[in-house]
């Protein structure tokens, strides 16, 4: 690179020296005369030096340009590793919870005791109401107090103490916060499992709709398969093929261009909250991705097999089914499985915009500071995705 006639005539010390001089001068000027941050000054100086290096050495030019881009983009994306170190206490408090003071413990104990008292009172109040439905409020209050005291006295003190301790532990965990230990109550697990199944269901139908639509469209987006439907070498036929492929490919670009999340927002606005909006969002995005991938694959099919079938007088659809599909089926299946696995992950966050799945629960729990429940759901998602990944890999190996 850059060893053309021009560079060979320029002495080495100028080739390296001139851009370096420009670099130093520009750096000094940029940092001294303007109020720019060091990173931006470096970026501008490198860009200036790169322009100086352009006629002398392309390799130096490329290197300086890369440094300029990295300096600028690092500044714009606020790269700050020091911040990460400074905030380590906050990170550990957020993830693992804060350490509790004596006051917190006393508070928890008091709240637990009060909670148990309230439970006795609630039971007693209900019992009093049952015993004397027509009593005056004052009589009811007296009866409630009496019954609560009796129930308390009747219950063994060890049992009461145990109930208080259970509540106290829960209060302490809530006060401590953090993601650990993950929530493991069975009723909650069932709730998460249900939401997770909805997520997988969204991914299944989203992927299926996308695959079924992408196959015929991608046949129209590849020159090689279009030749089966619109044959001939005349100018207008070539133009027609070019036009069809262009239009279909732009449709793929448009479908793929929007993230599932953005599409989900649109579909929620149209269809209302629920998993159907998520399914369609996944389907549209995946259609764009798979359509392009399939079309590119069709572009590389072996022409000989197509001609072998065509030469027997087969129709266009027969040629697709007998010459194109046999060659590309392993690729179509493996790509679809790959997208399915990726769609399960996408579907698990779609709930954040109300498009169904476990994301809705995660969003609700984060807003309620119930991070331990979020932790359980995250673990479940990882397990399910790993399981699907494993199954898909096995299926692909079988197919190859």
């Amino acid at each position, binding site marked *: 690179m850059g060893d053309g006639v021009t560079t060979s005539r320029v002495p080495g010390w100028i080739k390296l020296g001139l851009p370096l001089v420009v670099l130093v001068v520009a750096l000094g000027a940029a940092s001294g005369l303007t109020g720019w941050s060091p990173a931006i000054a470096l970026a501008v100086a490198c860009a200036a030096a790169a322009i100086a290096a352009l006629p002398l050495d392309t390799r130096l030019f490329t290197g300086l340009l890369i440094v300029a881009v990295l300096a600028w983009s690092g500044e714009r994306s606020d790269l700050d590793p020091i911040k990460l170190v400074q905030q380590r206490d906050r990170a550990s408090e957020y993830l693992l919870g804060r350490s509790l003071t004596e006051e917190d413990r006393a508070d928890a104990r008091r709240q637990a005791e009060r909670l148990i008292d309230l439970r006795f009172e609630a039971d007693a109040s209900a019992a009093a109401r049952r015993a004397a439905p027509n009593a005056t409020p004052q009589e009811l209050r007296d009866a409630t107090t009496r019954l609560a005291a009796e129930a308390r006295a009747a219950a063994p003190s060890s049992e009461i103490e145990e109930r208080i301790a259970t509540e106290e532990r829960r209060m302490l965990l809530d006060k401590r916060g953090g993601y650990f230990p993950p929530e493991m109550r069975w009723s909650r697990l069932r709730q998460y499992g249900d939401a997770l199944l909805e997520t997988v269901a969204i991914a299944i139908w989203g992927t299926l709709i996308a695959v079924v639509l992408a196959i015929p469209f991608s046949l129209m987006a590849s020159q090689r398969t279009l030749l089966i439907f619109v044959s001939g070498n005349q100018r207008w036929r070539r133009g027609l093929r070019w036009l069809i492929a262009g239009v279909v490919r732009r449709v793929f670009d448009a479908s793929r261009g929007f993230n599932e999340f953005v599409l989900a927002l649109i579909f929620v606005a149209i269809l209302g909250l629920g998993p159907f909006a998520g399914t369609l969002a996944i389907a549209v995005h995946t259609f764009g991705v798979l359509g392009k991938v399939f079309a590119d694959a069709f572009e590389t099919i072996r022409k000989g*097999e197509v001609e072998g079938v*065509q030469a027997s007088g087969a129709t266009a659809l027969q040629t697709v*089914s007998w010459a194109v599909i046999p*060659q590309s089926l392993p690729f179509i299946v493996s790509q679809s499985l790959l997208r399915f696995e990726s769609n399960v992950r996408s579907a698990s966050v779609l709930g954040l915009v109300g498009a169904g799945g476990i994301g809705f629960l995660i969003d609700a729990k984060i807003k309620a500071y119930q991070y331990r429940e979020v932790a359980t759901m995250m673990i479940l998602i990882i397990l399910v995705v790993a399981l699907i990944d494993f199954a898909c890999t096995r299926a692909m190996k079988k197919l190859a």
Partner: protein
Amino acid sequence: MQARTQPSLAHAIEVENLGVEFSGGVHALRDVSLRVGANEMVAIIGPSGAGKSTLLRSINRLVDPTSGTMRVNGVETTGVQGRRVRDLRAQTGMIFQQFNLVSRLTVLQNVLVGRLRFRQGLLAMWPTLVRWFNAEDHAAARRSLEQVGIAELASRRASDLSGGQQQRVAIAKVLAQGARLILADEPIASLDPRSARVVMDTLATINRETGVPVLVNLHHVEVARRYASRIIGMRQGRVVFDGPAGALTTDMTRDLYGEDVEHTEKGANEPVLASSEPVGLAHG
């Protein structure tokens, strides 16, 4: 072989002033005229790039000619489109140098490709799209495999077969298709001498026993001389020789291939078909 009601025509192929110009101004064929009789086996010889393949591919319209006229089996086929191109291809079996089988399908399925032409109605087509054929089609396919002597390979994957076996599957496909004309484009150029002999013998036997005309492109003058009753010599897109095999002299061959015939004949492919013992169709 199935009984075939074939009108007695003087010529299977009639080509007049055929020209093919590819985009970019390359003339692959210039003013080619030739006729192939109803029961003939004709060989086209000539150096690489002479236009032999383009000529064969023009006849079944894998290539669109840019000028001239064509009649195949007495039917005008100049400039036909769509359905009539399919009809033309259905009647015209083609054998390729690279066999052009669908590699991921079985041998039997590849032969059934020849039956697709019989299942093309608005309703009849759909079962074939999911690889379903009726008993009649299966019987025809198996019969064709027996004819070329590889019935025992029916359930093997096409790509697992040797080159010679694959070419025989291609011939079985053409038989199952019930072709009334066979075009063979360098059928033995990718084969070892022994397989080449089997394939050429099979084509010759089909021609002899069923009367189906065969037009075959060949690299080797000796092979052409042995199998064809008539030889057509091509050079630079033109026909430069057309006559009985015996009339082709060494001088003419030298003209055809340029200076040294030896070099051309001993190119990538060994032109040895020493034994002349005939191999018949197994159950012809």
